[in-house]
């Protein structure tokens, strides 16, 4: 036997050792269920034939270019997990140490600035991608029966990603992040039901040590765990019902195999990291001063995706009572999540859905205009 054949035999023997004791194919199937590629895996087969069979299958039409926002969101999520775990090696979540540990990461740790900045930017891009994905779902009608669950889990995924970002902002524990969170939570605490519940979750309506450690555990464990579950649910529904009638699981697109698709994923990963490093170098998030409890800085601003609600509530509807504004906010969030049950018309083409499309376009335009108005004219918003 040639030496390389011997090595291959040894590798197969090791694989066999595991294969007889645990079903490795199930792990591989789990990866595919997270949306990185959608191919169905025969978990009764051993790992190598199962992978070979899966990679030789033609790519399902719902996974063909340009339907890339889903896998892109998964890749960003995985990047956030890796960079977040790395940061947790140095970060200390206590009011007296948090700021100093961030300074240590940025100044002393090798590539600390890179990991910190790419983690900051990755969160923003993840939220942006999930927003784009929901916009696309809306206009393509990817919420009509039987895809209600696909929309709902996608919307929840977006909301959870926003909360991961909001809790993460506080962890830097500097003047700007502290006051942004204080001001951002003022509105939420006035809400009926949600307000007291959230107050309970974050350890009282006063910001302090309890808030920091609770935000920390929400940021690193509970919300990412929820993201993981929602990603699984989201892509499980895609695997069952497809994205549209034309892009259904049974409708096979071109002659491309999943083997090629894997190369596309690798290219996507390289591109993502390139974009993140570029942003980290060109547009680093500034290092703000330590918390001063006696003065609110002007830089304390809502996150960019909250600029529109902020402008609407604080600038345009400033005179209304908080309870009313909070309820308005809550109703619009519920409208987003439960949209499949609001618009139950069976129509699929743009012409059949003219009213709904007009409503969606108006809402999107309003959101964009309010954001532009807030950022350009009022100087509101922080990356």
């Amino acid at each position: 036997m040639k030496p390389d054949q011997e090595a291959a035999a040894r590798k197969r023997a090791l694989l066999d050792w595991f294969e007889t004791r645990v079903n490795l194919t199930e792990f591989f199937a789990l990866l595919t269920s997270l949306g990185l590629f959608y191919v169905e895996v025969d978990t009764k087969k051993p790992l190598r034939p199962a992978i070979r069979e899966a990679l030789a299958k033609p790519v399902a039409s719902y996974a063909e270019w340009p339907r890339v926002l889903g896998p892109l969101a998964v890749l960003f999520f995985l990047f956030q997990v890796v960079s977040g775990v790395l940061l947790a090696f140095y970060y200390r979540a206590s009011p007296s140490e948090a700021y100093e540990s961030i300074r240590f990461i940025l100044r002393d740790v090798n590539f600390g600035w890179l990991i910190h900045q790419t983690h900051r930017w990755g969160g923003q891009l993840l939220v942006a991608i999930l927003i784009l994905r929901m916009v696309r779902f809306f206009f393509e009608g990817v919420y009509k029966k039987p895809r209600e669950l696909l929309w709902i889990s996608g919307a929840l995924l977006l909301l959870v990603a926003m909360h991961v970002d909001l809790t993460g902002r506080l962890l830097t524990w500097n003047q700007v992040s502290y006051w942004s969170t204080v001001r951002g939570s003022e509105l939420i605490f006035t809400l009926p039901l949600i307000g007291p519940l959230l107050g309970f979750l974050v350890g009282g309506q006063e910001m302090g040590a309890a808030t920091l450690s609770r935000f920390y555990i929400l940021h690193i464990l509970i919300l990412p765990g929820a993201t993981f579950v929602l990603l699984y649910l989201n892509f499980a529904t895609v695997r069952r019902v497809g994205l549209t009638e034309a892009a259904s699981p049974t409708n096979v697109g071109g002659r491309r195999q999943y083997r090629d698709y894997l190369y596309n994923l690798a290219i996507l990963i390289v591109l993502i990291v390139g974009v993140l490093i570029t942003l980290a170098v060109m547009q680093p998030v500034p290092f703000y001063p330590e918390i001063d409890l006696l003065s609110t800085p002007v830089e304390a601003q809502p996150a960019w995706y909250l600029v529109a609600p902020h402008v609407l509530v604080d600038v345009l509807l400033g005179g209304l009572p908080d309870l009313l504004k909070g309820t308005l906010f809550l109703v619009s969030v519920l409208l987003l999540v439960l949209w499949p049950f609001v618009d139950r018309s069976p129509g699929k083409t743009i012409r059949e859905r003219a009213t709904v499309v007009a409503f969606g376009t108006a809402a999107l335009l309003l959101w964009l205009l309010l954001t532009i108005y807030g950022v350009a004219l009022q100087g509101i918003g922080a990356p």
Partner: protein
Amino acid sequence: MEDALTGSDDSSSRRRVLQWLVRSFLSLWGLASAGIVFSFLKSPSVDSAADRIVSAGSFSALGIGEARLIQHGNRPLYVLRVSEAQVIALSAVCTHRQCVLDWSRDRKSFVCPCHAGVFDASGQVTSGLPRRRLEQYRVSVRGDELSIYLGGA
């Protein structure tokens, strides 16, 4: 399948070169990423300039033959007044198993409470299990104020 269609040597060797290029690019990229992660995880030594100068208290309060134990972060240090004019600074950690040494004025030596290793007043090993001498640091006297420079002896 494509080999069957375009089976000429020319295109299959081009294919091999391209495949090789893609693979080596991806492996180099992976190596670089792994390098970044590794060097991030490697804890940096945290000697900023201010931390390298340690204040060691008053010079005149330190009698001849006396030693003073100083806590700097988690690094204990001794300043020892050898004679009227000479002060030396030594690490207070035994080089055998990292126990903090005691200064014995009678024996003019540092004694390890753990395994009875002994160092003389200049930090050399005189007996016991330790093999390396104690690290020595530069000391300066400015006015009455002693300062230890951790940057090296």
